[in-house]
């Protein structure tokens, strides 16, 4: 008798829970479907990216940018608020698909700002595409992402096919290097970038080496030896800031005197904090706008988070605003949102936000930044 009771109670509870789930998801579908008619409330915008893990800073910058846009929208539309929900992927392509599956079951979700990194985008975007949920990434820069025919894929920044050549151009024209050492962390993003840089630099490449994935290597002494032996005056690294901080310190300590050049994945204060004085003079490219070019945004951001906007905060703000404009226009069905984004054309804080048929931004600018007195400051636009 006791044992029957023991099994019976959880069974009943489980059955109740199941039926409850069925009820709510049905309700969600209705709300989504009827959206184009009356104005639906309780809608959501998702953030998809790393909030914890080795590259969490980059994700937090993006989330804050999107959150600011949502908060500003809510101030204007206090009677019909939008919420931002987070999907913390830890930047891990193995975790991303599960989260994406979870996201596409929520019909109140109008769009995703993200996925943040290229690796996780490759893993999660097919799921968003087959479900029809639109994504606008503020940071994924691998060029091949746009070539998959995903109808829901968009991004508001230039890809590595523009950033890579820009980095190579800066190395050739501004640093006037004759010998360059090119290295990466074997990630989707890092290797893609370093391959483009290698191709563009051609015969200037004096040596190459690869490191372990971000956060998976502490000792880079053999890489340092290789870089010095190659006689290079510029060291290009395709990867993220956690490895880059340790690498640049060991390069300087090991006697490498050239310039350290890396891309947007390293453009974070975590790089300077980790490397200390060794990071001084490093060049970081980024298809993102310096904050002083968008003063109003920078001011609002500083007020909200008590810190200057960091890499991709402004891009995330623009991406979130596309979805918020869609909501304001009453587009709540995912198909309608796709059409809305296709015809979107508006000045954002980073650039004119307009997408081509592959989901790439119509206008792109790449900037070089420099580490000076322990801060990342804009150096010049690479044209």
């Amino acid at each position, binding site marked *: 008798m006791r044992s029957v009771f023991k099994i019976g109670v959880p069974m009943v509870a489980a059955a109740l829970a199941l039926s409850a789930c069925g009820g709510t998801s049905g309700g969600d579908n209705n709300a989504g479907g009827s959206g184009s008619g009356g104005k639906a409330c309780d809608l959501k915008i998702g953030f998809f990216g790393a909030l914890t893990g080795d590259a969490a800073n980059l994700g937090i910058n993006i989330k804050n940018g999107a959150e600011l846009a949502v908060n500003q929208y809510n101030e204007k539309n206090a009677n019909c608020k939008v919420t931002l929900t987070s999907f913390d992927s830890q930047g891990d392509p193995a975790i991303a698909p599960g989260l994406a599956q979870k996201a596409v079951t929520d019909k109140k979700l109008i769009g995703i700002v993200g996925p943040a990194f290229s690796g996780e985008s490759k893993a999660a975007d097919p799921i968003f595409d087959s479900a029809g949920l639109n994504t606008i990434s503020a940071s994924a820069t691998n060029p091949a992402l746009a070539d998959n025919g995903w109808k829901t894929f968009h991004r508001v920044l230039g890809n590595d096919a523009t950033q890579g050549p820009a980095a190579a151009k800066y190395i050739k024209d501004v640093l006037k290097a004759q010998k360059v050492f090119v290295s990466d962390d*074997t990630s989707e993003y890092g290797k893609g970038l370093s391959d483009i840089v290698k191709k563009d630099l051609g015969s200037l490449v004096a040596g190459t080496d*690869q490191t372990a994935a971000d956060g998976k290597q502490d*000792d880079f002494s053999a890489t340092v*030896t290789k870089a010095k032996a190659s006689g290079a005056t510029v060291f290009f690294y395709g990867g993220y800031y956690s490895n880059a901080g340790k690498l640049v310190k*060991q390069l300087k*300590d090991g006697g490498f005197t050239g310039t350290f050049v890396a891309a947007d994945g390293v453009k974070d204060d975590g790089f300077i904090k*980790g490397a200390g004085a060794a990071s001084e003079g490093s060049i970081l490219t980024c298809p993102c706008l310096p904050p002083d070019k968008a003063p109003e945004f920078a001011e609002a951001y500083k007020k909200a988070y008590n810190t200057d906007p960091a890499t991709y905060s402004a891009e995330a703000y623009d991406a979130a605003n596309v979805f918020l404009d869609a909501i304001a226009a009453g587009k709540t069905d995912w198909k309608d949102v796709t059409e809305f984004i296709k015809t979107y054309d508006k000045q954002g804080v980073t650039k004119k936000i307009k997408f081509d048929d592959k989901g790439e931004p119509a206008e792109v600018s790449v900037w070089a930044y420099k580490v000076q007195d322990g801060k990342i400051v804009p150096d010049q636009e690479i044209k």
Partner: protein
Amino acid sequence: MDFSLLFSHFPELTITGLAYGAIYALIALGYTLVYGVLRLINFAHSEVFMYGAFAAVWVLMALGGGKASGLGIAGYLLIAFLSAMTVSALIALLLERVAYRPLRKRNSPPLIALISAIGASFALSEAMGLRDKPFKWFGQENAFQDYVGRPREASPFPLKIDVVRLFSIGNYQVSNIDLIVLGAAIVMMIVLDQFVNRSRLGRGIRAVAQDPEAAALMGVNRDRVIRLTFVLGGAMAGAAAVMYLLKVGQVRYNSGFLLGVKAFTAAVLGGIGNLRGALLGGFILGVAENYGQAVFGGEWRDVVAFTLLVVILLFRPTGLLGESLGKARA
């Protein structure tokens, strides 16, 4: 494959490999000491290392080590070593008290202790990675921001040591950091080796390792010997932590894991349970990684190191020096 770099930069690859190998070796000592006495792999030893590194960073921050110069640097470096070694030893002691002793008293099978070790490792590492939370619970978000703010990010070593090239071996100019790391490691190793082989307490350690019951009959306090091995292993890990900070310049809550795996490998390579084996294993692993990367490229670094481990264990299943702590006489 490219052997030219290996030959042209042999001294540099060897010295930097030895310097990093010294860090492996010091951590490996902790694994091997505990294994010798308890027949237990203390997987949480990597976190003992990580806490030591944070202790060194925080103590120097509190004392204003960032502004030190000249002779002051040497003083601060000594403080860093002392604080890291003390904290690491205390954490190791705590680990023994909380995670292992209760199990030992109940005669649990070794597998249970292994799971306890892995659990303790996660708990310690996450406690460091979530260190801002207790302050938030009590509404003190802004207290100690320099120490507990952004707990998942790297904390830099405050002491700024200018790299000075002292003398050259072949075409490599040895730097002061190489020398400090190698020198301190060798001093530590000699002290530990002499302590275990010559002192009365060391004899107790060897006796328990050889035959715990006979040792108890002869009046050796087994619990005290076990505590002592944890303290010794912890202190070595603390010293390794400061060397790691000198070389790498930063530490984060999960820094222990990678080094722990490598140091454990080094201990097995040299023959786990054997002190000198752990040293040899650490140095060989450090150098092999460098050579491997020079010849095959960075992406092959770990492949080379672990292939070496498998090959050595094929021919010498008990590791290079084999013998356990109790039997090692030399």
